[in-house]
């Protein structure tokens, strides 16, 4: 755990030492604020004190931002060879993967915390469903975990950052849209399966304010599976033929 934290700390520092963290935070706050307050089906347009416009835009912004964060995580280390230096220190592959995961998650959590003023302002306008806001944020975090782990996996199988970025978007689209569409086109067992795989289905039920262990289990298992795959790809160098 301590080693994981040391790795996460370094990644976070490199986010804030470069422009990555600031650009992410500013663009994320700007975009979500714009659509929450000023444009489209914003708070004033629908005439309700609700954060649902914020959550639906944040959902898509994170979908694009997280791959941008994770794409360099392992791909760049592999390209520059620093992965060799890192893995010959007293760390395990799993600690490296989870450390990087933790760093991304913390940055996303910071971005979400910075949107809390939106919540307080909306609260000022009228009665807010506090439970829904809470579960909305919770759903965001769960969804981010899933995307980060997918992004790390994509980053682990290539040493080209662009490929990693596109690949994690590609995989993400399946979970976000395609499984959902497939679920609507199939009935019976297959339909149920695709429905279960669809991230938007689980996200919707969490953000509606219903926290079911089944949904949480879904997010956590995909996260774990993504991290596990990323670790396996890293460990591939050890395979004895």
């Amino acid at each position, binding site marked *: 755990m301590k080693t994981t934290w040391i790795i996460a700390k370094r990644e976070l520092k490199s986010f804030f030492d470069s422009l990555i963290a600031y650009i992410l935070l500013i663009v994320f706050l700007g975009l979500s604020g714009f659509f929450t307050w000023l444009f489209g089906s914003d708070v004033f347009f629908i005439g309700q004190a609700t954060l649902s416009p914020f959550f639906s835009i944040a959902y898509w912004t994170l979908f694009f931002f997280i791959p941008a964060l994770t794409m360099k995580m392992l791909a760049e280390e592999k390209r520059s060879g620093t992965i060799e230096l890192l893995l*010959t*220190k*007293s760390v395990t592959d799993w600690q490296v993967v989870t450390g990087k995961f933790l760093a991304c998650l913390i940055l996303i959590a910071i971005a979400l915390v910075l949107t809390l003023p939106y919540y307080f302002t909306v609260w000022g306008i009228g009665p807010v469903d506090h439970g829904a806001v809470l579960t909305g944020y919770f759903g965001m975090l769960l969804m981010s975990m899933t995307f980060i782990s997918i992004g790390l996996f994509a980053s682990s199988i290539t040493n080209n950052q662009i490929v990693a970025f596109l690949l994690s978007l590609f995989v993400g689209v399946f979970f976000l849209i395609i499984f959902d569409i497939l679920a609507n086109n199939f009935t019976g067992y297959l339909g149920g399966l695709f429905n279960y795989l669809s991230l938007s289905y689980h996200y919707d039920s969490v953000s509606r304010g219903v926290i079911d262990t089944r949904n949480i289990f879904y997010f956590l298992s995909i996260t774990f599976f993504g991290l596990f795959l990323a670790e396996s790809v890293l460990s591939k160098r050890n395979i004895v033929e």
Partner: protein
Amino acid sequence: MSIVVENLTKKYGTQKAVNNISFKVETGEIVGFLGPNGAGKTTTMKIITCFMAPSEGDVKVSGHSVLEKQNEIKRLIGYLPENNPLYYDMPVLDYLQFVAELQGVRRDKIPLRIAEMVKVCGLNKEKHKIIGELSKGYKQRVGLAQALIHDPEILILDEPTTGLDPNQIVEIRKLIREIGKEKTVILSTHILPEVEAISDRILIINNGEIVADGSPEMLRKQSHGQEVLQVQIADYSSKDELITALQSIETVGMVDPIEGVDDTFILNSKDGLSSSRNVFNLCVEKKWVLTQMTPIETKLEDIFRELTTN
């Protein structure tokens, strides 16, 4: 802190990068790993440092197997990989801090260790810079500093002097020799004089196999262009008499008994002279049995070339 490599084999697909090699490095030795490009030096080092698992065989570092006790081994080893990969966006001090924490240096000792590394590696002037801004020589020093930060018992350096200017090369060599007084060092290179300058022992590897293993002492003598003979003599009465007799041959410069092998000597002839006839005549005269007399190649470069080209 010994390193024992036992029947090590590493395959990449069907190609054998390292083919069934075995050797042993004792505590305090500086071993030069020599060989042409692609001979398997780097692969061997990557296996010793637990970056890759061997296909067959085992490496034991201080009794721990690389197949089981990887974390223990990683703490014992300081490693400078080929091409010296570093995080170019990090400041030197932050980077050393990061490595020290990873290698489990005690929190209160970290500033001390960093200060010492900055001093030992001569980084004082550049310590606040970002690694990417440093010149190649200074990057190399950062690479050495990160390898040494946790005061490892074993130092493994993969081509530590590539790309440096002659002054820097001399400095880095001096540094390695200094460090090597207390630690076990394995370094690879394909620069012959470098190995001679630094190492106690030379291992030449070619096509994944060890083709020579010996002290540079022996090799340097050979590189002076003298005739060197390996002679084995049996049925003598006293060893002292034998050595004195060999030494008194007028063409013989020096007699060196080979350690661990009975009755075998390395005879260095004086420059430009040959001793083989005289040795033979001496044996006949004294009624000793000459069981072996092998001329040994005369130049380190020649030996290297002969061993590494097929």
